[in-house]
């Protein structure tokens, strides 16, 4: 984007003016400032300014043990807390070549999918609200509450779990865990048609999203847009399929792909993914061993052998990568998180050029940005 953007800044049209959207704008879901250049109502370019909640997580990791790092990763993409934890755990386990008990792998996958569902529900609620449909927020949060109750019952916390630990889980899940997951699946299957009636089939919603923010597959690959946003453009980037981890290669599912690449396609991918997650939950609960250890045997202080390790995980928003350089000490030498939202954010300029400013809200909503994940 930038060469032509810079030229635009220097050679300004008399009619143009710049407004700052954020850092306190309600539709950005966090502290993101968008420098928007407008000509009337038409967007000429968008420059995202980030760093308002940069906490230096990567620097902090250099002074923390691997078990402590788990708790920092929650705070990146707080809506995919479980997947973030799992990424670090898998990196450590693969480096140490630890065999994780099968039961743990099933529980992790169940929690992954529940977390993904909860995240998509919140996204659906907020996306509707961004576009002026207030009811979605009540529907979405009502159903999300059911998932949070399952989380709370098993490990006390609702949002930031830190339930994973290198080698397994902190402790075993609640005895009613499987029963409640199945109850939730049955409950949410009945509620999903409501979502469809309320928003998916809504003509006003179609007009706001169809044909808005078109992203080609080439653009998605070039900008590294992953997750449901990338799959809405036909970029098959689901890490659960491309580079399976945990139990995912033993499960029967297909990644959701849409070719259109507009905001509505990105919406549909997430709606379909909710159904995929429900199917996966059913398979997982059915196959999950009822007896077994909740953790493998690990040393009290985890030290990775010298080397470089990279672990990929699919979060609710795309591909999360954990890159660890270890020098054999109990702290990592360097830790880098490749966060999905970071790459997803910067495509915003390419998508919103020439559209109206109200469409910018629809596009940023359809990309499903979580700001702490970008700033780290």
């Amino acid at each position, binding site marked *: *984007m*930038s*060469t032509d*953007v*810079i030229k635009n800044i220097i050679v300004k049209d008399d009619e143009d003016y710049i407004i700052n959207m954020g850092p306190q704008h309600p539709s950005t879901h966090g502290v993101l400032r968008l420098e928007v250049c407008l000509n009337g109502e038409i967007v000429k370019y968008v420059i995202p300014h*980030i*760093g308002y909640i*940069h906490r*230096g997580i*990567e*620097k902090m990791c250099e*002074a923390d043990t691997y078990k402590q790092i788990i708790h920092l990763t929650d705070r990146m993409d707080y809506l995919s807390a479980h997947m973030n934890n799992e990424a670090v755990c898998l990196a450590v386990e*693969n*480096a140490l070549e630890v065999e994780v008990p099968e039961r743990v792998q099933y529980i992790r996958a169940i929690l992954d999918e529940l977390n993904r569902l909860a995240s998509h529900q919140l996204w659906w609620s907020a996306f509707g609200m961004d576009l002026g449909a207030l009811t979605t927020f009540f529907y979405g949060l009502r159903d999300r509450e059911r998932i949070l109750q399952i989380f709370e019952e098993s490990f006390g916390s609702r949002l930031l779990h830190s339930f994973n630990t290198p080698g397994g889980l902190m402790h075993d899940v609640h005895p009613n865990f499987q029963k409640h997951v199945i109850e939730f699946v049955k409950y949410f299957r009945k509620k999903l048609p409501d979502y469809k009636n309320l928003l998916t089939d809504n003509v006003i919603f179609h007009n706001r999203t169809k044909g808005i923010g078109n992203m080609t597959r080439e653009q998605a*690959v*070039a*900008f*590294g847009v992953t997750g449901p946003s990338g799959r809405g453009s036909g*970029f*098959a*980037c689901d890490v659960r399929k*491309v*580079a399976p981890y945990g139990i995912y290669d033993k499960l029967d599912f297909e990644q959701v792909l849409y070719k259109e690449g507009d905001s509505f396609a990105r919406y549909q991918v997430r709606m379909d993914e909710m159904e995929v997650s429900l199917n996966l939950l059913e398979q997982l609960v059915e196959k999950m061993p009822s007896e077994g250890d909740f953790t493998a045997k690990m040393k009290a202080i985890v030290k990775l052998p010298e*080397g*470089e*390790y*990279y672990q*990929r995980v699919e979060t609710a928003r795309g*591909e999360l*990568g954990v*890159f660890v*350089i270890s020098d054999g000490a109990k702290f990592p*030498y*360097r830790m*880098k998180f*490749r966060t999905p939202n*970071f*790459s997803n954010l*910067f495509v915003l300029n390419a998508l919103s050029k020439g559209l109206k400013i109200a469409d910018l809200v629809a596009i940023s909503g359809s990309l499903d940005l979580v700001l702490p994940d970008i*700033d780290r």
Partner: protein
Amino acid sequence: MENTELMELITKVIPYGTVSQGSQYPEIVVPADKLHEAAEQLRNMEGHPFDYLINMTAADFSEKFTVYYHMESTKTHNLIVLKADISDREKPEVDTVSDIWVTAEFFEREVFDLFGIRFKNHPDLRRLFLEDDYGFPLRKDFKDEVNIIELPN
């Protein structure tokens, strides 16, 4: 595609680089001044274009900086790591690859912000997270007496 087969292919395309099997993925080490050329050849490699730059980062090893590029071919789903060492600590510089992968533009801004590595021909090299007068916090010799409290050992 098997990694060994892929490594042979890459050795043919990039004869000036050292190709080896890392702990997980094939790794290619090239001299810093050949980085742009190597990146371009990998991006346009016949049959296996590495078109998806997953991750780009750097690390400080006191006597040198190393830049890492994790890339994947969306056709074959092979992942490789491209590495280059920058030995000049005073004025670390390397060519940008943002003209090859757009997403590199923002990864490079992040690396510039946190390590102070400059990327030649970068279209918009500004700091991403921090203020202009802040140091480069991910360098190992970074000292910030105001914001970072050192714990006693």
